[in-house]
């Protein structure tokens, strides 16, 4: 589980870094910062980020509803949610 968490967090940092304008280095991201307020993450970019992250980590995006996405406010929220579902996804 700790390895999974580390791998997902690392992937999450990289994918989030890619959608931020201007780009913020993956290692500089604050896991507890509000994604919208601190990094200007729009709802469109949030879905892009999560779509790519799910693909990267092999977690099925279909585990989540629009409501679940709205509840993911920080990088730590995202990492925790994906880690929870990682074990439910065959082959992930």
């Amino acid at each position, binding site marked *: 589980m700790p390895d999974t968490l580390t791998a997902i967090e690392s992937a999450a940092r990289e994918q989030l870094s*890619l*959608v*931020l*304008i*201007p*780009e*913020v280095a993956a290692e500089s991201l604050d896991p507890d910062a509000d994604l919208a*307020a*601190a*990094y*200007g993450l*729009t*709802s*469109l*970019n949030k*879905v*892009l980020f*999560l*779509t790519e992250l799910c693909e990267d980590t092999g977690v099925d*995006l*279909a*585990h*989540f*509803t*629009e409501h679940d*996405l709205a509840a993911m406010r920080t990088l730590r929220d995202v990492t925790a949610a994906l880690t929870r579902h990682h074990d439910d996804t065959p082959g992930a």
Partner: protein
Amino acid sequence: MTAPTAAPTAVPAAPESLSPLNRLVTAAPTAGGRIHAARLDGTRSLSLGELYERAGRLAHHLRALGIGPGTRIGILAANSLEWVLLDLAALRLGAQTAGLEPGKFTPSRELMDRYGLTLLCTDQPTDPAARLPGTLSTDDVWALTEPGDGPEEPLPPVTWAERDVTTIKFTSGSTGVPKGLGATAGSIDSSLEAVQEIFGHNPDDHLFVFLPLSLLQQRYWVYSALLHGHDVTLTTYEAAFATLRRVRPTVVMGVPAFYETARRQIEARRRRPGAGSARQVAQALFGDRIRYLWTGSAPAAPAMVRFFTEEAGLPLFEGYGLNETCIVTKNHPGAHREGSVGRVVRGKQVLIGEDGVISVRSAHPVGDHYEYAAPGDSEKVFMPDGTVRTGDIGHLDEDGFLFVHGRADDVIVLDNGKKIVVRPVEERMKADPAIAECVLFSPTQTDLVAVVSPAALPADTDAVTAALAAANAAGTPDERISRVIVADEPFSIANGLLTSQYKPKRPAIQSAYAHRLHNQEAGIHA
């Protein structure tokens, strides 16, 4: 509405001589095609034939509630199959709809009274204590489309005459309460035929719709599917990117803000080692079957159109039209020109006034007045002969392509008499990725002051300073921006500084930053 006096005869397939809308209400679709409603957690799907049958059963139930010619149903819900079923059932009954966008309206007795709604269908909770009669939850709609025990009786036949109003559409104006406008059946038929003539949607096509169905034009793509037998997927703005690659559409019906986000994403991914070409990365995002991308409702930056069309290999076609005119011009595979919004479509005529303002005359007008607006609003837009004065300024080139320069009221007249069309100047600032939006004002009529929305927080003031220098170097002396005020937070729908179609609300921005606009010391100076 006109109801035929003679008893109807059974018609197995709608005759081609009927107008598109009358074909939709007269007989089941004969071609194939499916409709899909895609959410993050899954997709519901049914054949267009089944959609027609279910809409018919729903129409019977609505008829029992008193819905028919002369009544109006309000639909206040996110995109869903239920939305489509309600719309089609209303058309089958000769009843009007009012497409009410979630976020702009809330269910209430006052809403129903204001818009004369016999029935309000909504996916939003209504206060049971308020005992709101005449409401139907969209959660209960599907059950009303299931087959009953007995034989299915035919519905009374309806015919939509050209001037009959089928729906009330609301402008997403930049100020105040939305204005309501009745749309005629003739205008819808005319637009459906004009679009089909230039894009030739066919059974191999799959149209991807994520803008709200409360916008009438988004319902066109469902009507098009029923008429031409192609697939259509409905989703929401928020879920669009997640469902896009799953759906693999051939056509995406978008707006500039959506494509701009996609372009930035493609370019960011290309910076990764081994990412592949722009075409490959774009295909990963949009799927591998795209025939073309549609954009409208707000100006698209020429650089963005060029990026998709030339670098990403996904032709992006911009068009032009207002709620009051429907589609006026459109670039398309057979005729497109960079920087233009395309040639005038069949049934429309563009007139350029001496002041450069674009007016539009239609063979089948959407309407000739607002049904819900402040006194005097209709007269400002609708001329006595039915011509619509758009308030945009532009020109037609020698080959009939329309170029839109900006809003007539977005021209700043300086005290030296010089007229500055603000949009090209704002576009120069927006070329910098650190700037999401730029809006120009002239508080003292002597110089230009910009308010920019940062792409992210904290704002990159160095990049804004550099963008200011670059924009001033590229413009004429009169177009020089003397100061830039960086907004405290990005403009958004939530903070009231963007419209629901992601256009900046100039008066609201001016009001929010009035103090700094007038304070000569404020902002970044050129």
